[in-house]
């Protein structure tokens, strides 16, 4: 008796979960399905170590990542960052993360790179105070990074 009630409940839950999953993914392009979950916990993690933990561990330094940020940023609210990959040294990059060590939440942006797209992104981020910026890439679940310090003369939090 008890058993059948439980399994009915479980079946219903599973059904609901499936329904939510189908609804959430129906609009998304099939190619990217595997990567299409916003890593909410990584975006709200505080501190670099817990952010790394959320995305799967501490990345290894790799010289195939060409990470460009200004040495000195006059305005921390708008700091240009560019991540390029040397495809000979590091092929098949499928995710790129940009992190700012001393921001309240280090993870600024995460990019899913489909096949045929260069693992290359340019954007601008806020940097609260002088610290290291990190470009982290995911190659088949393995994480690699490049770090670069940017000195901020005016903070990034609108101050």
């Amino acid at each position, binding site marked *: 008796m008890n058993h059948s009630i439980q399994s009915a409940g479980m079946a219903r839950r599973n059904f609901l979960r499936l329904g939510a999953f189908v609804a959430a993914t129906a609009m998304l392009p099939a190619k990217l399905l595997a990567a299409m979950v916003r890593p909410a916990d990584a975006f709200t993690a505080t501190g670099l170590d817990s952010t790394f933990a959320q995305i799967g561990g501490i990345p290894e330094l790799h010289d195939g990542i060409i990470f460009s940020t200004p040495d000195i940023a006059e305005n921390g609210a708008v700091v*240009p960052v560019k991540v390029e990959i040397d495809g000979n040294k590091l092929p098949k990059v499928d995710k790129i993360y940009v992190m700012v060590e001393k921001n309240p*939440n280090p993870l600024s*942006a*995460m990019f899913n790179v*489909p096949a045929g797209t260069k693992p290359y992104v340019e954007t601008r981020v806020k940097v609260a105070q002088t610290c290291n910026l990190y470009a982290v890439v995911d190659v088949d679940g393995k994480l690699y990074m490049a770090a670069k310090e940017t000195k901020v003369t005016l903070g990034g*939090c609108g101050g």
Partner: protein
Amino acid sequence: MAGKIRIRAQQQGDYTEVKALMRHPMETGLRKDQAGEPIPAHFIEEVTVTHKGNVVMHAYWGAAVSANPFLGIQFEGGAPGDEVAVVWTDNKGETGEGTTKIR
């Protein structure tokens, strides 16, 4: 506040360079207004770039992307005249989009 996106897509040999500028306050939720009241978080969470309907870049963003965000990407397989579109969604469910043709 569905925002228009300014996009440029330019063929550069074997790849297409896309540069997009979005209009958005990108509020972190950590700032206070002049009266000392916290300004609620309001930022773009998701950005998708498509070429003829196929996704060529997809991003999740946090509030630390600068206000009026800029995004530059490069993809292969484009040709002059092809349509490139950029769409964003923010944490309030608002969206913005823009399209252009590769030059």
